[in-house]
């Protein structure tokens, strides 16, 4: 963690100055504490006082994001797939990387997102191994995750409807923990059905059943 103090005409200007000094262009990577707002001295009268701020910057944070990007591009290159990083956001516990690929996004995603999932898993392992951190790296491409989320919610509601109508439980295909959680959440307020996960490891599936009372 690095901390620097900077003065400027306004807090904004001081922040810009500080970022330039640290060589950071993403304002999300720093925390700014305003020590003194400063006074500008209206119409040249009065005493003008510079604004003073303190910038907190976690220099390790950048390492994880950069390392993740480097590993990811190295793998894509060796997979012979064209693709690049469109956006990278780094928080305290997470790194979010959005990929782009003109021709190969379908291959990068894979059937039911399997390839994207595998890439994410391997990149996490390699980066954690290299940097010694446990930051979670999340990969996305062409809003695949948001779209998949929407599709899963829609599907869960449709199947819940069938279960209510027929009175028979329905077991979904195996899903990863994140997707299973999404199904549970999207149906938790529907009193007419209950959801339950069953099975081991990658075979774990969600079953939607009619509530016993109805």
């Amino acid at each position, binding site marked *: 963690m690095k901390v620097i103090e900077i003065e400027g005409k306004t807090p904004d200007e001081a922040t810009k100055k500080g970022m330039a000094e640290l060589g950071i262009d993403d304002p999300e990577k720093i925390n700014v504490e305003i020590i003194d707002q400063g006074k500008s001295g209206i119409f040249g009268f009065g005493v003008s006082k510079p604004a003073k701020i303190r910038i907190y910057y976690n220099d390790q944070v950048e390492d994880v994001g950069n390392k993740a990007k480097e590993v990811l591009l190295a*793998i894509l290159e060796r*997979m*012979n797939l064209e693709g690049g990083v469109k956006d990278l956001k780094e928080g305290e516990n997470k790194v979010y990387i959005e990929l782009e690929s003109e021709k190969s996004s379908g291959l990068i995603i894979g059937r039911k997102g399997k390839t994207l999932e*595998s*890439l994410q*898993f391997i990149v996490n*392992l390699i980066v954690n191994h290299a940097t010694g951190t446990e930051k979670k790296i999340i990969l996305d491409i062409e809003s695949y995750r948001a779209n998949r989320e929407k599709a899963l919610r829609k599907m869960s509601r449709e199947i819940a409807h069938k279960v209510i109508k027929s009175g028979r439980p329905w077991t979904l295909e195996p899903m990863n923990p994140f997707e299973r959680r999404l199904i549970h959440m999207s149906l938790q307020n529907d009193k007419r059905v209950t959801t339950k996960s069953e099975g081991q490891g990658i075979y774990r599936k969600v079953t939607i059943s009619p509530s016993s009372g109805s």
Partner: protein
Amino acid sequence: MDYKELVAYMVKSLVDHPDEVEIREIEGEKSTILELKVTKEDIGKVIGKHGRIARAIRTIINASATKSGKRVVLEILD
């Protein structure tokens, strides 16, 4: 397409003894077999719990083999 190089990059980045990673590529007409050998201590690092790491590596290999239509098999030797 160099599958050996793809596997080597991933495996060497995962293990504690990258210098002792050996990969042999056996090329057939329709399929390519990759034989991977790592040290005893590193074997868990390439297989993972319930084979999760090995499965992810295989998925990535298959994605890059899709275009060629070739089958690429990764065998982990012990």
